[in-house]
Structure formats: structure tokens, C-alpha cells
């Protein structure tokens, strides 16, 4: 009976449109060392525990103690030391903008996220959102919803094909609407953590402005129409659209009037050792428009040798004659600004060779081999020099 009531409730809850100016939720009462209760929740945790066993041993996880300690310290400053103790963070080497949360307290942070946020406050906004999923036990509720919808459709399919065909679309749609509502709840609770933390609440919306601009740039680079600035979510969308998220995050943050230090310098310092790696990952995504936009954003405070080198690689890999000229120039600037990596000489040499400047090109390649005689491609480069 209770289940039937819940199924009926499903129909009523369909397609509730989130309002824009949302009130900031109060922080839930914290339960230390929370243990799952009930068959469903304990089942969810068991599956998450198995997934975590695999995550723990995954080759994709970045184990660097300093980086891990740093990301963890940002989470702890955001949600407080008590809450932060219930979470294990795994930094995954994946060059995309995302982070995930499992019901048992396993959190993943993707390396592409670390490349895109520009201060601790923005990272804190994402980590707070993920932690909100955990504290509000969203996976469990989503699972119950999905099961209820499946059961409902199973019975209606047998009772009446007419009713079934009328209900199937709206029932499935309601699952995604429910997921979007959960995401909004996590956004707002994440914002509440951010407000309670030393970081400014306004940072949460800033991420989305740049993510949308990057999507626009990616689409432009691929000669496609950008879908980044849609206002209404698609039928199968698990999250509200970026515009909607940016809007309610900004409006709610404005009301809280929560100043603070976003800790941009500390963030750049902590991530500096990883920038060459993350930039190289990004360049390999074959996303000229998006990568060029992202590099421009990262260079707001000036072009560092690492950024210049990454941009040179980006242009050389696209490889139009004009790109090769730009690339050679960018390599030159990176070297002049003190880039230590001899790979810049290699890139410059290859770009010049293909730009009808064989002698300067060979000279650069010679310098590359002098500085890196044991390079993997030493033989091939030597052949190019000898031509």
C-alpha cells in the first residue's frame, strides 16, 4: 500500500520547475561515523564499497601525497573537519571537468577539474556540491525513485496498454526531473557550506560562466552550434542547464553577502607542479577552440612559459601553415621566458622545418638533441637534421 501511495506521488511530483531565487538551506545536523540503515541503503553502500576497492587499486588514480593532501585540505576548510573525516578523495587522471560522489563517502575529483577552477574557492564550491550529495543521501533516494518508476510501469503495462503509453514518457521524464532537483539541492547546500567557510560564496557561479564560454569555444572550433546556453533542460538531462545553475547560484550568493579570500595564489602554487601534465592532457583532446579559450583564461595574469609551450603545441598540432608560424613564435617566447623543457626546441624545429625554414629548424633540432641525447625519437630527429 505504501508503495502504491509512493507511486501515485511520483505522478504528482512530475516536472516541477526549479525556481531561480532559492533560499539557502540550513546545514543538516552532522552525524559522525554515519552507518547505513535499511536493506536498500546498506545495499547501496556495499556496491559503493566494492567500487571503492577497485578505485583504490586503479591505475588512473593520482597518488602524489602533496596534491592529495592539498585537495583534502580545501574540502576540510569547506565542510569542516568533522564532515571531512567521513570522505575519501581519489584524484583521477581524467582530462575532463567533473567530480563524483558515491553513497559511502568516496569522492572522485578529475584532473580536468583542477585545470579549470582557478582558486580554492571555486574548487571548494565543487567539493561542497559533491559532499552535499553524500550528506543528503541522494543516491539512495534516486535508486528508490527509479525502482518505483520501474514497478509502476511494469504494472501499468499489464493493466492497460493505453494507460502505459500515456504514462511511460512522463514517468521516465519524472526520474530525470527528480535527478535535476537533487542536483539543485546539492548546488544550494554546497553554497551553504561555502558560505560557512572562509571562501566567498560568489565563486560558485563563476565556474559556470567559464564552462559555458569554453563549450561555446569548443563548438565554434568544430563549426557546430553551441548548446551551452540553453535555459530549459532536455528530457534526459540529469542536471539543470549551466545557465540555470549559474543564475540561481549567483542570485543566492548575492543575498548572502559573504566576502572572503578565494585563495588564488595558494591554489596556483599548489597546482604549479602539475600544470605541464594537465596542459599536455588537454592539448591531446583535439579540441582546438576549447583549449585555446582555456589557455587564454589561465593566462589572465600573464603567459607563463608552460602556457606558451602548451599553446605552441596546440597550434603545431592543428598544423595549418599559419599555425606552424604561430607555433614557432610561441615556442620562441616560451624559451625566451625560461622554459626548461628541451621539448620546446623540438617543437620549434619541427614547426620551422614545415614552414620552409629548414636551417633554423635544423638548428633547433640540434639544440634539442644536445640537451636530450637519449630522447626516444633521437634517431628520427637525427634523420631530419641530416636531410
Amino acid at each position: 500500500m505504501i508503495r502504491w501511495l509512493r507511486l501515485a506521488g511520483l505522478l504528482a511530483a512530475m516536472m516541477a520547475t526549479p525556481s531561480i531565487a532559492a533560499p539557502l538551506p540550513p546545514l543538516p545536523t552532522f552525524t559522525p561515523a554515519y552507518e547505513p540503515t535499511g536493506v536498500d541503503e546498506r545495499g547501496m553502500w556495499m556496491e559503493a564499497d566494492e567500487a571503492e576497492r577497485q578505485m583504490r587499486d586503479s591505475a588512473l588514480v593520482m597518488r602524489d601525497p602533496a596534491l592529495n593532501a592539498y585537495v583534502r585540505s580545501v574540502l576540510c576548510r569547506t565542510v569542516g573537519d568533522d564532515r571531512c573525516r567521513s570522505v575519501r578523495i581519489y584524484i583521477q587522471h581524467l582530462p575532463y571537468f567533473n567530480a563524483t560522489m558515491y553513497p559511502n563517502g568516496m569522492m572522485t575529483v578529475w584532473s580536468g577539474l583542477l585545470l579549470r577552477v582557478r582558486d580554492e574557492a571555486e574548487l571548494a564550491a565543487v567539493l561542497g556540491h559533491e559532499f552535499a550529495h553524500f550528506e543528503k543521501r541522494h543516491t539512495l533516494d534516486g535508486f528508490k525513485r527509479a525502482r518505483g518508476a520501474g514497478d509502476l510501469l511494469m504494472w501499468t503495462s499489464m493493466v492497460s496498454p493505453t494507460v502505459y503509453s500515456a504514462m511511460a514518457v512522463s514517468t521516465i521524464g519524472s526520474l530525470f526531473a527528480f535527478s535535476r532537483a537533487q542536483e539543485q539541492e546539492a548546488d544550494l547546500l554546497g553554497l551553504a557550506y561555502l558560505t560557512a567557510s572562509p571562501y566567498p560564496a560568489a565563486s560558485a557561479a563563476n565556474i559556470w560562466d567559464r564552462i559555458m564560454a569554453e563549450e561555446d569555444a569548443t563548438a565554434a572550433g568544430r563549426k557546430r552550434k553551441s548548446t551551452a546556453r540553453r535555459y530549459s533542460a532536455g528530457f534526459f538531462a540529469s542536471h539543470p542547464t549551466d545557465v540555470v545553475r549559474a543564475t540561481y547560484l549567483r542570485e543566492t550568493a548575492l543575498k548572502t553577502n559573504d566576502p572572503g579570500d578565494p585563495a588564488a595564489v595558494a591554489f596556483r602554487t599548489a597546482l604549479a607542479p602539475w600544470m605541464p601534465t594537465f596542459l599536455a592532457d588537454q592539448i591531446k583532446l583535439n579540441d582546438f577552440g576549447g583549449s585555446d579559450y582555456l589557455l587564454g583564461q589561465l593566462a589572465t595574469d600573464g603567459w607563463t612559459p608552460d602556457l606558451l609551450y602548451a599553446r605552441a603545441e596546440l597550434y603545431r598540432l592543428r598544423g595549418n601553415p599559419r599555425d606552424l608560424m604561430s607555433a614557432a613564435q610561441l615556442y620562441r617566447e616560451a624559451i625566451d621566458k625560461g622554459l626548461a623543457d628541451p621539448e620546446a626546441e623540438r617543437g620549434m624545429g619541427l614547426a620551422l622545418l614545415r614552414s620552409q625554414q629548414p636551417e633554423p629548424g635544423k638548428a633547433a633540432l640540434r639544440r634539442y638533441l644536445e640537451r636530450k641525447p637519449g630522447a626516444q625519437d633521437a634517431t628520427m630527429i637525427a634523420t631530419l637534421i641530416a636531410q
Partner: protein
Amino acid sequence: MRGFLRNTIGVLSSVALMGAALPASAQEKTGNKPGFTLAPGSARIVLMRPSIKVGEQSTGGLFEPNADWTAQSRDNLNHAIAAMQGQLGNSVFDIVEPAGADAAALAEYQALFATIADSVIVYQFFPGNRLPTKKRKGQFSWTMGSGVASLPGLAGADYALFVTTEDQFGSTGRKVAQVFAALAFGVSVPTGVHKGFAGLVDVKTGDLVWLNADLQMGGDVRTDEGAQKRVTQLFEGFPGRPVVLAAAPAGAGK
């Protein structure tokens, strides 16, 4: 899993699960590398950590994991396997799980084994599905590569044994729906999933020398007797077993 931007496993999976799985009727269950024999008492076999998943199947077909059943079944199956070990004709040891970088290497090979076993089941055990390279009669040619030999935890071992089971017991609602659909429309609603496989890998070459897979297994793994029956079925056709025991009660049905 909840993502910041996207959920990689969406709510859609629950809807997709309502569909039917591969037809289990036309399936072959056991594959042996041709010419492979395992003389009793000649080999040291390491048992990898079994993958065990037990839960319920909702009316709509969604898997509902059950932590108690899974823990109980893991105990039962471990006991049943330990009891079976004496009858396999060779010495079987549990793997000592490594830590750190070693664990990562081992995890990759466990994932690789699961992928290969799935491929064998889909592309070899279903004759209509067989890949052109797997069509010659009596052929069983699958390998994980020679890298297996250098895996931590397998030093000194001759063979690695992998065991996987998954049980989704039909919920009451699912069973009622099954009966109702059959009576009212003559439509068959499959209820419950009970599948498992066991495989033996030659550590020196990485070759898969034996695989037994069954998508409709018997034995309720939540009970001692059921787990024994399941393990008996899992080890049907295990190479090198003493002849007497090969005729042990092979379960049919559930």
C-alpha cells in the same frame, strides 16, 4: 554515482534493465584449451578474491543489492570452495592481496580477466554469435598475455583461479507480475538472474585453459547447501579432477 556535471550511470539504467538478457538456452557452458590436461597433485593453484553479488530483482527489473545476503553468500561460498579444494586434485591457496603499486597491477589483470570471460561467453559459448576466428571446431584460444607471470601474489603459482557469481532473486512483486503476465497475456516475464563463472589461467603463458560459465545456475547461495550446489556446478568440467568426483551430483534446475 553523482557527478558534478554528468552522472555517468544515469537513472536510465533502471529502465534499460527491464529488457531481457541473452537467451540462455542455446549456450555452451564449458570451454577447455585443446590438449590441456592437469595431472592431479601436479600444480599449485591460487584462488583470486571471488566477485560475489547478491540481491533482489524489483518488479520492474531493477537490481536491488542486499548487503546481508552478499556477506552471507560470500561466507557460504568461501566455505564451499574450501571444502571443494580437497576434491580438485591439486593444492589451492587464497591469494594474499598486495598493496600499493602491486595492487594496481593485479586489479588491471582482474578487470582483464572479467572482460575476456565475458568475450568467451558472448563470442564463443553462443554458437550463433561466434566470431569468424573462433569457428573452428574444438578451438579454445584465449589469453591474457605473458604479463600474468610477473604479477604480485602469483609468484610460485602455476595457475590462477577466478570465480564470479551474481544472483538477483525475484522479488514477490516480480513473481506476481510473472504469473499475472503469463496467465493474462501468455507473456513470459523472466524472473531472477543467477549466473556465475569460474576460469583457470596458466600463470606462465597467460592462456585461459578452462572456463565454465552458466547464465542459469542452481543453488541458493544464501544457504550452506545451496552454496555447495553452486560451487559443484561452478567446477563442473574442472580439468584434472579425480574421475570419481567428476560424477558428483551435478545440479539441474534450481
